[in-house]
Protein backbone atom coordinates (compact mmCIF):
# COMPACT_ATOMS: atom_id res chain seq x y z
CA UNK A 1 0.00 0.00 0.00
CA UNK A 2 1.55 3.21 -1.15
CA UNK A 3 0.72 6.44 0.60
CA UNK A 4 0.24 9.32 -1.80
CA UNK A 5 0.03 12.78 -0.32
CA UNK A 6 -0.59 16.02 -2.15
CA UNK A 7 -1.60 18.84 0.14
CA UNK A 8 -1.91 22.60 -0.34
CA UNK A 9 -3.30 24.52 2.57
CA UNK A 10 -2.79 27.53 4.78
CA UNK A 11 -1.75 27.18 8.42
CA UNK A 12 -2.19 30.45 10.19
CA UNK A 13 -0.09 32.87 8.19
CA UNK A 14 1.95 30.11 6.61
CA UNK A 15 1.45 27.91 3.61
CA UNK A 16 1.88 24.16 3.40
CA UNK A 17 2.54 22.69 -0.01
CA UNK A 18 3.64 19.09 -0.02
CA UNK A 19 3.74 16.30 -2.55
CA UNK A 20 5.18 12.97 -1.51
CA UNK A 21 4.85 9.22 -1.74
CA UNK A 22 5.68 6.54 0.79
CA UNK A 23 5.96 3.03 -0.57
CA UNK A 24 4.60 -0.16 0.89
CA UNK A 25 6.38 -0.90 4.14
CA UNK A 26 8.62 2.13 3.70
CA UNK A 27 9.50 4.35 6.62
CA UNK A 28 9.72 8.00 5.67
CA UNK A 29 11.27 10.31 8.21
CA UNK A 30 10.30 13.98 8.07
CA UNK A 31 12.75 16.44 9.48
CA UNK A 32 12.72 20.19 9.46
CA UNK A 33 13.12 23.24 11.62
CA UNK A 34 10.55 24.15 14.25
CA UNK A 35 7.38 25.58 12.78
CA UNK A 36 8.14 24.15 9.35
CA UNK A 37 4.69 22.58 9.28
CA UNK A 38 5.51 18.98 10.14
CA UNK A 39 2.75 18.52 12.65
CA UNK A 40 0.32 20.27 10.36
CA UNK A 41 1.28 17.93 7.52
CA UNK A 42 0.70 14.87 9.69
CA UNK A 43 -2.64 16.18 10.87
CA UNK A 44 -3.75 16.77 7.31
CA UNK A 45 -2.75 13.24 6.32
CA UNK A 46 -4.73 11.81 9.22
CA UNK A 47 -7.74 13.96 8.51
CA UNK A 48 -7.63 16.00 11.71
CA UNK A 49 -6.82 19.16 9.78
CA UNK A 50 -8.11 20.13 6.36
CA UNK A 51 -5.99 18.88 3.48
CA UNK A 52 -6.99 21.70 1.18
CA UNK A 53 -6.33 21.31 -2.49
CA UNK A 54 -4.94 17.91 -3.29
CA UNK A 55 -5.26 14.23 -2.79
CA UNK A 56 -4.43 11.72 -0.08
CA UNK A 57 -4.62 8.03 -0.85
CA UNK A 58 -3.40 4.86 0.77
CA UNK A 59 -3.23 2.02 -1.73
CA UNK A 60 -6.62 1.88 -3.39
CA UNK A 61 -8.37 3.91 -0.67
CA UNK A 62 -8.78 7.56 -1.54
CA UNK A 63 -8.93 9.44 1.75
CA UNK A 64 -9.15 12.92 0.38
CA UNK A 65 -9.57 14.29 -3.09
CA UNK A 66 -10.43 17.91 -3.58
CA UNK A 67 -11.37 17.13 -7.18
CA UNK A 68 -14.08 14.61 -6.30
CA UNK A 69 -14.86 15.92 -2.83
CA UNK A 70 -13.98 12.55 -1.34
CA UNK A 71 -13.14 12.75 2.33
CA UNK A 72 -12.85 9.69 4.52
CA UNK A 73 -13.64 10.16 8.20
CA UNK A 74 -10.66 10.13 10.55
CA UNK A 75 -11.92 7.03 12.32
CA UNK A 76 -12.14 5.10 9.07
CA UNK A 77 -8.54 5.73 8.05
CA UNK A 78 -6.92 3.25 10.45
CA UNK A 79 -3.89 5.36 11.17
CA UNK A 80 -1.68 4.56 14.13
CA UNK A 81 -1.03 8.08 15.35
CA UNK A 82 1.34 9.22 18.07
CA UNK A 83 0.78 12.94 18.61
CA UNK A 84 3.55 15.32 19.61
CA UNK A 85 2.15 15.34 23.16
CA UNK A 86 1.14 11.88 24.34
CA UNK A 87 -2.52 12.92 24.94
CA UNK A 88 -3.55 9.90 26.92
CA UNK A 89 -7.23 9.68 27.86
CA UNK A 90 -7.03 11.02 31.40
CA UNK A 91 -9.90 9.05 32.89
CA UNK A 92 -8.67 5.66 31.69
CA UNK A 93 -5.74 3.72 33.05
CA UNK A 94 -2.78 2.95 30.80
CA UNK A 95 -4.09 -0.45 29.73
CA UNK A 96 -7.53 0.92 28.90
CA UNK A 97 -5.83 3.63 26.84
CA UNK A 98 -4.02 1.06 24.77
CA UNK A 99 -7.07 -1.21 24.56
CA UNK A 100 -9.20 1.71 23.38
CA UNK A 101 -8.25 1.30 19.74
CA UNK A 102 -8.92 -2.44 19.35
CA UNK A 103 -12.13 -2.01 21.34
CA UNK A 104 -13.26 0.84 19.09
CA UNK A 105 -12.54 -1.28 16.05
CA UNK A 106 -14.79 -4.06 17.23
CA UNK A 107 -12.63 -6.42 19.26
CA UNK A 108 -14.16 -7.89 22.40
CA UNK A 109 -13.25 -6.64 25.82
CA UNK A 110 -10.96 -9.53 26.71
CA UNK A 111 -9.41 -9.63 23.26
CA UNK A 112 -8.75 -5.88 23.34
CA UNK A 113 -7.05 -6.15 26.67
CA UNK A 114 -4.91 -9.02 25.45
CA UNK A 115 -3.87 -7.05 22.36
CA UNK A 116 -3.16 -4.05 24.55
CA UNK A 117 -1.13 -6.02 27.04
CA UNK A 118 0.88 -7.39 24.19
CA UNK A 119 1.60 -3.94 22.78
CA UNK A 120 2.52 -2.70 26.24
CA UNK A 121 4.95 -5.55 26.70
CA UNK A 122 6.58 -4.61 23.41
CA UNK A 123 7.11 -1.09 24.71
CA UNK A 124 8.14 -2.38 28.15
CA UNK A 125 5.29 -0.61 29.90
CA UNK A 126 3.20 -3.62 30.88
CA UNK A 127 4.01 -2.97 34.54
CA UNK A 128 2.17 0.36 34.21
CA UNK A 129 -1.09 -1.15 33.01
CA UNK A 130 -3.15 -0.05 36.00
CA UNK A 131 -1.72 3.45 36.20
CA UNK A 132 -3.60 6.69 35.60
CA UNK A 133 -1.96 8.84 32.93
CA UNK A 134 -1.26 11.71 35.33
CA UNK A 135 0.98 9.48 37.40
CA UNK A 136 3.21 8.50 34.49
CA UNK A 137 6.61 10.01 33.79
CA UNK A 138 7.14 11.76 30.46
CA UNK A 139 8.85 8.79 28.87
CA UNK A 140 6.36 6.31 30.27
CA UNK A 141 3.48 8.31 28.82
CA UNK A 142 5.17 8.45 25.43
CA UNK A 143 5.71 4.71 25.37
CA UNK A 144 2.09 4.10 26.28
CA UNK A 145 1.07 6.43 23.44
CA UNK A 146 3.25 4.45 21.01
CA UNK A 147 1.83 1.16 22.29
CA UNK A 148 -1.66 2.57 21.77
CA UNK A 149 -0.90 3.50 18.16
CA UNK A 150 0.59 0.10 17.40
CA UNK A 151 -2.26 -1.81 19.04
CA UNK A 152 -4.71 -1.03 16.23
CA UNK A 153 -2.63 -2.85 13.61
CA UNK A 154 -2.52 0.32 11.56
CA UNK A 155 -2.56 0.57 7.80
CA UNK A 156 -0.40 3.64 8.15
CA UNK A 157 1.80 4.77 11.02
CA UNK A 158 2.08 8.48 11.72
CA UNK A 159 4.45 9.36 14.52
CA UNK A 160 5.08 12.95 15.59
CA UNK A 161 8.40 13.03 17.44
CA UNK A 162 7.75 9.64 19.03
CA UNK A 163 11.13 9.41 20.70
CA UNK A 164 11.43 12.94 22.09
CA UNK A 165 10.91 11.82 25.68
CA UNK A 166 12.53 8.40 25.45
CA UNK A 167 15.83 7.62 27.04
CA UNK A 168 18.69 6.62 24.76
CA UNK A 169 18.43 2.99 25.68
CA UNK A 170 14.94 2.88 24.20
CA UNK A 171 15.71 4.59 20.91
CA UNK A 172 17.69 1.95 19.05
CA UNK A 173 14.86 -0.51 19.54
CA UNK A 174 12.35 1.77 17.84
CA UNK A 175 13.31 0.86 14.31
CA UNK A 176 12.85 -2.85 14.91
CA UNK A 177 9.67 -2.14 16.78
CA UNK A 178 8.13 -0.15 13.96
CA UNK A 179 9.20 -2.76 11.43
CA UNK A 180 7.65 -5.57 13.44
CA UNK A 181 4.48 -3.65 14.06
CA UNK A 182 3.86 -2.97 10.41
CA UNK A 183 5.40 -6.12 8.97
CA UNK A 184 2.18 -8.05 8.43
CA UNK A 185 0.27 -5.19 6.86
CA UNK A 186 3.31 -3.69 5.12
CA UNK A 187 1.97 -0.36 6.29
CA UNK A 188 4.02 2.67 5.38
CA UNK A 189 5.18 4.92 8.21
CA UNK A 190 5.67 8.67 8.39
CA UNK A 191 7.83 9.75 11.30
CA UNK A 192 8.73 13.25 12.39
CA UNK A 193 11.88 13.69 14.43
CA UNK A 194 14.44 16.30 15.41
CA UNK A 195 17.05 13.74 16.30
CA UNK A 196 19.73 13.19 13.64
CA UNK A 197 20.44 9.64 14.72
CA UNK A 198 16.75 8.81 14.69
CA UNK A 199 16.44 10.42 11.28
CA UNK A 200 19.24 8.30 9.90
CA UNK A 201 18.29 5.09 11.59
CA UNK A 202 14.49 5.08 11.84
CA UNK A 203 13.76 5.82 8.22
CA UNK A 204 14.39 4.42 4.79
CA UNK A 205 14.22 7.89 3.32
CA UNK A 206 14.30 11.35 4.78
CA UNK A 207 12.10 14.21 3.65
CA UNK A 208 13.13 17.68 4.66
CA UNK A 209 10.31 20.13 5.25
CA UNK A 210 11.20 23.77 5.51
CA UNK A 211 8.72 26.62 5.63
CA UNK A 212 5.92 24.39 4.45
CA UNK A 213 7.80 22.99 1.45
CA UNK A 214 9.85 19.88 0.89
CA UNK A 215 13.35 21.03 0.14
CA UNK A 216 14.92 17.60 -0.23
CA UNK A 217 13.87 13.97 -0.17
CA UNK A 218 16.25 11.04 -0.29
CA UNK A 219 18.16 8.44 1.66
CA UNK A 220 20.44 9.56 4.43
CA UNK A 221 23.40 8.91 2.23
CA UNK A 222 21.97 10.93 -0.63
CA UNK A 223 21.29 13.82 1.71
CA UNK A 224 24.73 13.58 3.26
CA UNK A 225 26.32 13.43 -0.16
CA UNK A 226 24.54 16.49 -1.46
CA UNK A 227 22.65 18.45 1.17
CA UNK A 228 20.56 21.10 -0.51
CA UNK A 229 20.00 23.46 2.39
CA UNK A 230 21.98 24.55 5.42
CA UNK A 231 19.42 22.84 7.59
CA UNK A 232 20.15 19.45 6.08
CA UNK A 233 23.84 20.04 6.36
CA UNK A 234 23.51 21.05 9.98
CA UNK A 235 21.34 18.03 10.67
CA UNK A 236 23.90 15.68 9.21
CA UNK A 237 26.83 17.49 10.73
CA UNK A 238 28.19 18.60 7.38
CA UNK A 239 29.43 22.00 6.33
CA UNK A 240 27.62 23.43 3.37
CA UNK A 241 28.86 26.40 1.41
CA UNK A 242 26.81 27.95 -1.34
CA UNK A 243 28.54 29.97 -3.98
CA UNK A 244 29.31 30.39 -7.58
CA UNK A 245 31.53 27.78 -9.20
CA UNK A 246 34.13 28.59 -11.79
CA UNK A 247 36.26 25.61 -12.68
CA UNK A 248 37.71 24.32 -9.45
CA UNK A 249 36.99 27.46 -7.41
CA UNK A 250 33.80 28.18 -5.54
CA UNK A 251 33.37 31.80 -4.63
CA UNK A 252 30.99 33.15 -2.01
CA UNK A 253 32.02 36.71 -2.52
CA UNK A 254 33.87 36.96 0.77
CA UNK A 255 35.62 33.67 0.40
CA UNK A 256 37.08 31.38 -2.22
CA UNK A 257 37.29 27.64 -1.88
CA UNK A 258 39.22 25.26 -4.09
CA UNK A 259 37.16 22.18 -4.60
CA UNK A 260 37.94 18.61 -5.63
CA UNK A 261 37.64 17.20 -9.10
CA UNK A 262 34.13 17.29 -10.48
CA UNK A 263 32.17 17.27 -13.68
CA UNK A 264 29.54 19.88 -13.07
CA UNK A 265 29.03 23.07 -14.97
CA UNK A 266 30.08 26.49 -13.85
CA UNK A 267 27.40 28.50 -12.06
CA UNK A 268 25.63 28.30 -8.72
CA UNK A 269 26.90 25.34 -6.73
CA UNK A 270 26.97 23.84 -3.27
CA UNK A 271 30.17 22.62 -1.71
CA UNK A 272 30.17 20.27 1.28
CA UNK A 273 32.99 19.57 3.70
CA UNK A 274 32.91 17.13 6.59
CA UNK A 275 33.73 18.73 9.91
CA UNK A 276 36.44 16.19 10.60
CA UNK A 277 38.18 16.94 7.31
CA UNK A 278 39.08 20.40 8.44
CA UNK A 279 42.22 21.05 10.46
CA UNK A 280 42.82 23.94 12.80
CA UNK A 281 46.13 25.58 13.50
CA UNK A 282 47.46 28.22 15.78
CA UNK A 283 49.46 29.84 13.03
CA UNK A 284 49.34 29.75 9.23
CA UNK A 285 50.06 26.18 8.23
CA UNK A 286 52.56 25.08 5.61
CA UNK A 287 52.04 22.11 3.33
CA UNK A 288 49.65 20.48 0.93
CA UNK A 289 46.12 21.78 1.78
CA UNK A 290 44.99 24.10 -0.97
CA UNK A 291 42.44 25.89 1.21
CA UNK A 292 43.81 27.88 4.11
CA UNK A 293 42.02 30.76 5.79
CA UNK A 294 42.06 32.73 8.96
CA UNK A 295 39.09 32.80 11.29
CA UNK A 296 37.97 33.16 14.90
CA UNK A 297 36.50 30.56 17.25
CA UNK A 298 32.85 31.35 17.95
CA UNK A 299 32.08 28.49 20.26
CA UNK A 300 33.41 25.17 21.45
CA UNK A 301 31.14 22.23 22.38
CA UNK A 302 33.06 19.57 24.21
CA UNK A 303 31.97 15.97 23.89
CA UNK A 304 33.47 12.80 25.27
CA UNK A 305 35.56 11.91 22.25
CA UNK A 306 34.74 14.80 20.00
CA UNK A 307 34.99 18.52 20.29
CA UNK A 308 32.98 20.65 17.90
CA UNK A 309 34.49 24.03 17.11
CA UNK A 310 32.40 26.64 15.35
CA UNK A 311 33.90 29.36 13.13
CA UNK A 312 31.75 32.05 11.58
CA UNK A 313 34.08 34.16 9.47
CA UNK A 314 34.35 34.41 6.54
CA UNK A 315 31.99 31.44 6.23
CA UNK A 316 30.07 29.39 8.80
CA UNK A 317 32.12 26.27 9.38
CA UNK A 318 32.08 23.62 12.06
CA UNK A 319 35.16 21.58 12.74
CA UNK A 320 35.34 18.33 14.70
CA UNK A 321 38.47 17.59 16.65
CA UNK A 322 39.47 15.09 19.27
CA UNK A 323 39.82 16.55 22.75
CA UNK A 324 43.54 15.86 22.46
CA UNK A 325 43.68 17.68 19.14
CA UNK A 326 42.03 20.73 20.67
CA UNK A 327 44.45 20.71 23.63
CA UNK A 328 47.33 20.49 21.19
CA UNK A 329 46.45 23.71 19.41
CA UNK A 330 45.26 25.30 22.64
CA UNK A 331 42.65 27.74 21.42
CA UNK A 332 39.56 28.94 23.30
CA UNK A 333 36.38 30.76 22.37
CA UNK A 334 37.14 34.10 20.74
CA UNK A 335 40.69 33.15 19.79
CA UNK A 336 42.08 33.57 16.29
CA UNK A 337 42.75 30.39 14.44
CA UNK A 338 43.74 29.13 11.01
CA UNK A 339 41.70 26.52 9.20
CA UNK A 340 42.77 24.30 6.35
CA UNK A 341 41.13 21.70 4.19
CA UNK A 342 42.39 19.73 1.25
CA UNK A 343 40.61 20.43 -2.01
CA UNK A 344 39.99 16.70 -2.43
CA UNK A 345 37.87 16.79 0.76
CA UNK A 346 35.57 19.40 -0.72
CA UNK A 347 32.86 17.88 -2.85
CA UNK A 348 30.68 20.02 -5.01
CA UNK A 349 27.19 19.70 -6.48
CA UNK A 350 25.29 22.07 -8.70
CA UNK A 351 23.00 24.31 -6.65
Amino acid at each position, binding site marked *: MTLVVRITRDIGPHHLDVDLEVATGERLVIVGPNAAGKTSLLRSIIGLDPAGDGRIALGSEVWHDSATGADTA*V*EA*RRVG*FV*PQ*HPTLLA*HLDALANVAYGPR*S*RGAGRAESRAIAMNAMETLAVDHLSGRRPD*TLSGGEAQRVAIARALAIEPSLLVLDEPTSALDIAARPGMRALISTATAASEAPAVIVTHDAVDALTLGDRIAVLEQGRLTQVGTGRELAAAPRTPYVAELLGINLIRGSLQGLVLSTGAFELTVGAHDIDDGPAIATVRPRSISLHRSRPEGSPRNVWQSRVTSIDRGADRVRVRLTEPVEIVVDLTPAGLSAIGVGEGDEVWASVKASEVTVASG
Partner: protein
Amino acid sequence: MSDTRRPSVPRLVLVPAALGIALFALPVIGLVSRAPWSDLASLITDPAPRSALVLSVVTSLVTTAIALALGVPLALVLARTRLPGRGVVLAVCTLSMVLPPVVAGVALLSALGRRGVIGRLLDDHLGLTIPFTPAAVVIAQLFVAMPFLVVTLESALRSADRAPEEVARTLGARPWRVLATVTLPSVRGALGAGAVLTWARAIGEFGATITFAGNLPGVTRTLPTETYLALQTDPGRAVLLSLLQVGVSLAVLLALRHRWVPALTGRRP
Protein backbone atom coordinates in the same frame (compact mmCIF):
# COMPACT_ATOMS: atom_id res chain seq x y z
CA MET B 1 2.43 13.80 40.35
CA SER B 2 -0.25 16.37 40.95
CA ASP B 3 -0.59 16.51 44.69
CA THR B 4 1.04 19.61 46.00
CA ARG B 5 2.36 20.03 49.41
CA ARG B 6 0.68 23.20 50.52
CA PRO B 7 -2.89 24.21 49.89
CA SER B 8 -2.51 26.73 47.09
CA VAL B 9 -5.59 28.63 48.25
CA PRO B 10 -4.90 32.01 49.79
CA ARG B 11 -5.65 31.84 53.51
CA LEU B 12 -7.88 34.90 53.47
CA VAL B 13 -10.51 33.27 51.27
CA LEU B 14 -11.55 31.42 54.39
CA VAL B 15 -13.26 34.58 55.61
CA PRO B 16 -15.76 35.02 52.76
CA ALA B 17 -16.10 31.25 52.56
CA ALA B 18 -17.12 31.12 56.21
CA LEU B 19 -19.59 33.93 55.57
CA GLY B 20 -21.02 31.93 52.68
CA ILE B 21 -21.35 28.86 54.85
CA ALA B 22 -23.07 30.90 57.54
CA LEU B 23 -25.52 32.26 54.99
CA PHE B 24 -26.58 28.72 54.15
CA ALA B 25 -26.29 27.17 57.57
CA LEU B 26 -28.07 29.75 59.73
CA PRO B 27 -31.47 29.57 58.06
CA VAL B 28 -31.30 25.81 58.10
CA ILE B 29 -30.44 25.88 61.78
CA GLY B 30 -33.28 28.34 62.30
CA LEU B 31 -35.63 25.98 60.51
CA VAL B 32 -34.48 22.97 62.46
CA SER B 33 -34.83 24.86 65.74
CA ARG B 34 -38.40 25.87 64.86
CA ALA B 35 -39.56 22.44 63.83
CA PRO B 36 -42.09 20.77 66.12
CA TRP B 37 -40.18 17.52 66.33
CA SER B 38 -42.83 15.93 68.56
CA ASP B 39 -45.18 15.90 65.55
CA LEU B 40 -42.71 13.95 63.49
CA ALA B 41 -44.20 10.59 64.37
CA SER B 42 -47.67 11.57 63.23
CA LEU B 43 -46.26 13.05 60.05
CA ILE B 44 -44.46 9.89 59.11
CA THR B 45 -47.46 7.68 59.66
CA ASP B 46 -49.71 10.02 57.65
CA PRO B 47 -50.10 8.56 54.13
CA ALA B 48 -50.71 11.93 52.40
CA PRO B 49 -47.22 13.33 52.74
CA ARG B 50 -45.81 9.94 51.97
CA SER B 51 -47.48 9.72 48.60
CA ALA B 52 -46.42 13.32 47.87
CA LEU B 53 -42.89 12.43 48.83
CA VAL B 54 -42.86 9.41 46.56
CA LEU B 55 -44.27 11.45 43.69
CA SER B 56 -41.66 14.16 44.25
CA VAL B 57 -38.76 11.77 44.34
CA VAL B 58 -39.94 9.80 41.33
CA THR B 59 -40.84 12.78 39.16
CA SER B 60 -37.65 14.66 40.01
CA LEU B 61 -35.53 11.65 39.11
CA VAL B 62 -37.48 11.10 35.90
CA THR B 63 -37.03 14.78 35.14
CA THR B 64 -33.31 14.52 35.71
CA ALA B 65 -33.08 11.48 33.46
CA ILE B 66 -35.01 13.18 30.66
CA ALA B 67 -33.03 16.37 31.18
CA LEU B 68 -29.88 14.36 30.62
CA ALA B 69 -31.33 12.63 27.56
CA LEU B 70 -32.37 15.92 25.97
CA GLY B 71 -30.01 18.37 27.62
CA VAL B 72 -26.76 16.60 26.82
CA PRO B 73 -27.51 16.55 23.08
CA LEU B 74 -28.70 20.14 23.25
CA ALA B 75 -25.56 21.27 25.04
CA LEU B 76 -23.47 19.38 22.50
CA VAL B 77 -25.19 20.98 19.58
CA LEU B 78 -24.87 24.41 21.14
CA ALA B 79 -21.22 24.00 22.08
CA ARG B 80 -19.92 22.04 19.16
CA THR B 81 -21.73 22.93 15.99
CA ARG B 82 -22.03 26.17 14.16
CA LEU B 83 -25.80 26.15 14.38
CA PRO B 84 -27.08 29.49 13.10
CA GLY B 85 -29.53 30.16 15.94
CA ARG B 86 -27.06 29.15 18.66
CA GLY B 87 -27.28 32.39 20.60
CA VAL B 88 -31.04 32.52 20.38
CA VAL B 89 -31.41 28.96 21.66
CA LEU B 90 -29.09 29.59 24.57
CA ALA B 91 -31.04 32.76 25.32
CA VAL B 92 -34.32 30.86 25.30
CA CYS B 93 -32.83 28.38 27.75
CA THR B 94 -31.78 31.16 30.07
CA LEU B 95 -35.17 32.73 29.68
CA SER B 96 -37.06 29.82 31.16
CA MET B 97 -34.88 30.19 34.24
CA VAL B 98 -35.77 33.86 34.51
CA LEU B 99 -39.54 33.44 34.32
CA PRO B 100 -41.31 33.43 37.67
CA PRO B 101 -42.45 29.82 38.15
CA VAL B 102 -46.16 30.57 38.06
CA VAL B 103 -45.73 32.37 34.76
CA ALA B 104 -43.72 29.42 33.53
CA GLY B 105 -46.75 27.32 34.39
CA VAL B 106 -49.00 29.70 32.45
CA ALA B 107 -46.59 29.48 29.52
CA LEU B 108 -46.74 25.71 29.60
CA LEU B 109 -50.51 25.81 29.71
CA SER B 110 -50.63 28.11 26.73
CA ALA B 111 -48.49 25.62 24.79
CA LEU B 112 -49.55 22.23 26.08
CA GLY B 113 -52.81 22.94 27.92
CA ARG B 114 -56.19 21.88 26.63
CA ARG B 115 -56.47 25.14 24.71
CA GLY B 116 -52.76 25.50 24.08
CA VAL B 117 -51.07 25.77 20.72
CA ILE B 118 -49.97 22.11 20.72
CA GLY B 119 -52.19 20.83 23.50
CA ARG B 120 -55.28 21.60 21.45
CA LEU B 121 -54.02 19.35 18.66
CA LEU B 122 -53.20 16.58 21.10
CA ASP B 123 -56.60 16.91 22.70
CA ASP B 124 -58.56 17.04 19.45
CA HIS B 125 -56.72 14.34 17.52
CA LEU B 126 -55.37 11.97 20.13
CA GLY B 127 -57.68 12.68 23.03
CA LEU B 128 -54.56 13.32 25.05
CA THR B 129 -54.61 15.86 27.87
CA ILE B 130 -51.33 16.59 29.53
CA PRO B 131 -52.27 18.76 32.52
CA PHE B 132 -53.40 17.02 35.69
CA THR B 133 -51.10 14.05 35.03
CA PRO B 134 -47.75 13.09 36.52
CA ALA B 135 -46.35 13.68 33.03
CA ALA B 136 -47.32 17.31 33.44
CA VAL B 137 -45.38 17.45 36.69
CA VAL B 138 -42.32 16.18 34.87
CA ILE B 139 -42.78 18.62 32.00
CA ALA B 140 -43.13 21.53 34.39
CA GLN B 141 -39.98 20.50 36.23
CA LEU B 142 -38.14 19.99 32.94
CA PHE B 143 -39.04 23.42 31.64
CA VAL B 144 -37.82 25.08 34.80
CA ALA B 145 -34.86 22.88 35.70
CA MET B 146 -33.31 21.54 32.50
CA PRO B 147 -31.64 24.86 31.58
CA PHE B 148 -29.38 24.44 34.58
CA LEU B 149 -27.95 21.32 33.02
CA VAL B 150 -27.73 22.79 29.55
CA VAL B 151 -25.96 25.98 30.61
CA THR B 152 -23.49 24.18 32.89
CA LEU B 153 -22.68 21.52 30.35
CA GLU B 154 -22.50 23.84 27.37
CA SER B 155 -19.84 25.95 29.02
CA ALA B 156 -17.85 22.89 30.07
CA LEU B 157 -18.03 21.38 26.61
CA ARG B 158 -16.96 24.60 25.00
CA SER B 159 -13.81 24.85 27.04
CA ALA B 160 -12.92 21.15 27.07
CA ASP B 161 -9.68 20.11 25.40
CA ARG B 162 -10.36 18.59 21.99
CA ALA B 163 -7.09 16.71 21.64
CA PRO B 164 -8.29 13.54 23.42
CA GLU B 165 -11.29 13.37 21.10
CA GLU B 166 -9.02 13.64 18.11
CA VAL B 167 -6.86 10.81 19.37
CA ALA B 168 -9.94 8.68 20.01
CA ARG B 169 -11.04 9.23 16.42
CA THR B 170 -7.68 8.15 15.06
CA LEU B 171 -8.07 5.02 17.16
CA GLY B 172 -11.23 4.21 15.26
CA ALA B 173 -13.92 5.50 17.60
CA ARG B 174 -17.03 6.66 15.78
CA PRO B 175 -18.78 9.84 16.90
CA TRP B 176 -21.10 8.11 19.39
CA ARG B 177 -18.24 6.24 20.97
CA VAL B 178 -16.14 9.38 21.17
CA LEU B 179 -19.05 11.09 22.86
CA ALA B 180 -19.64 8.34 25.38
CA THR B 181 -16.06 7.40 26.15
CA VAL B 182 -14.14 10.63 25.80
CA THR B 183 -16.26 13.78 25.57
CA LEU B 184 -18.69 13.07 28.40
CA PRO B 185 -16.11 11.60 30.76
CA SER B 186 -13.97 14.68 30.20
CA VAL B 187 -16.84 16.91 31.39
CA ARG B 188 -18.10 14.49 34.01
CA GLY B 189 -17.67 17.08 36.73
CA ALA B 190 -19.93 19.53 34.95
CA LEU B 191 -22.31 16.75 34.02
CA GLY B 192 -22.61 15.74 37.66
CA ALA B 193 -22.98 19.34 38.83
CA GLY B 194 -25.56 20.09 36.14
CA ALA B 195 -27.54 16.97 36.98
CA VAL B 196 -27.53 17.82 40.68
CA LEU B 197 -28.63 21.39 40.00
CA THR B 198 -31.39 20.21 37.71
CA TRP B 199 -32.58 17.62 40.14
CA ALA B 200 -32.49 20.00 43.10
CA ARG B 201 -34.39 22.64 41.16
CA ALA B 202 -36.89 19.99 40.05
CA ILE B 203 -37.58 18.52 43.47
CA GLY B 204 -38.03 21.98 44.97
CA GLU B 205 -40.22 23.21 42.11
CA PHE B 206 -43.67 24.38 43.10
CA GLY B 207 -45.12 27.29 41.14
CA ALA B 208 -44.91 25.92 37.62
CA THR B 209 -46.01 22.48 38.75
CA ILE B 210 -49.15 23.54 40.52
CA THR B 211 -50.09 25.92 37.74
CA PHE B 212 -49.50 23.50 34.88
CA ALA B 213 -50.06 20.09 36.45
CA GLY B 214 -52.50 21.08 39.12
CA ASN B 215 -52.76 19.57 42.54
CA LEU B 216 -54.41 16.20 42.85
CA PRO B 217 -53.40 14.05 45.79
CA GLY B 218 -51.53 11.00 44.60
CA VAL B 219 -51.38 12.21 41.00
CA THR B 220 -49.80 15.61 40.83
CA ARG B 221 -49.43 16.70 44.45
CA THR B 222 -45.72 16.91 45.07
CA LEU B 223 -44.06 17.51 48.39
CA PRO B 224 -43.53 21.24 47.79
CA THR B 225 -47.25 21.60 47.09
CA GLU B 226 -48.07 19.62 50.21
CA THR B 227 -45.69 21.88 52.10
CA TYR B 228 -47.17 25.04 50.69
CA LEU B 229 -50.65 24.00 51.66
CA ALA B 230 -49.52 22.93 55.10
CA LEU B 231 -48.06 26.39 55.50
CA GLN B 232 -51.59 27.80 55.18
CA THR B 233 -52.86 25.98 58.23
CA ASP B 234 -49.99 24.52 60.20
CA PRO B 235 -46.60 26.17 59.68
CA GLY B 236 -44.92 23.75 62.06
CA ARG B 237 -46.04 20.87 59.94
CA ALA B 238 -44.80 22.70 56.84
CA VAL B 239 -41.38 23.07 58.39
CA LEU B 240 -41.31 19.40 59.25
CA LEU B 241 -42.34 18.52 55.71
CA SER B 242 -39.56 20.68 54.31
CA LEU B 243 -37.02 19.05 56.53
CA LEU B 244 -38.36 15.69 55.42
CA GLN B 245 -37.85 16.76 51.83
CA VAL B 246 -34.36 17.97 52.58
CA GLY B 247 -33.52 14.76 54.37
CA VAL B 248 -34.81 12.58 51.58
CA SER B 249 -33.02 14.75 49.03
CA LEU B 250 -29.75 14.30 50.82
CA ALA B 251 -30.34 10.57 51.01
CA VAL B 252 -31.05 10.38 47.28
CA LEU B 253 -28.03 12.50 46.54
CA LEU B 254 -25.76 10.38 48.64
CA ALA B 255 -27.19 7.16 47.23
CA LEU B 256 -26.61 8.33 43.67
CA ARG B 257 -23.22 9.65 44.58
CA HIS B 258 -22.07 6.38 46.02
CA ARG B 259 -23.28 4.53 42.99
CA TRP B 260 -22.02 6.97 40.41
CA VAL B 261 -19.12 8.51 42.16
CA PRO B 262 -16.44 6.74 40.13
CA ALA B 263 -18.10 7.88 36.93
CA LEU B 264 -19.20 11.33 37.94
CA THR B 265 -16.54 12.92 40.06
CA GLY B 266 -13.37 14.35 38.68
CA ARG B 267 -11.31 13.11 41.57
CA ARG B 268 -7.78 12.02 40.86
CA PRO B 269 -6.45 8.78 42.22
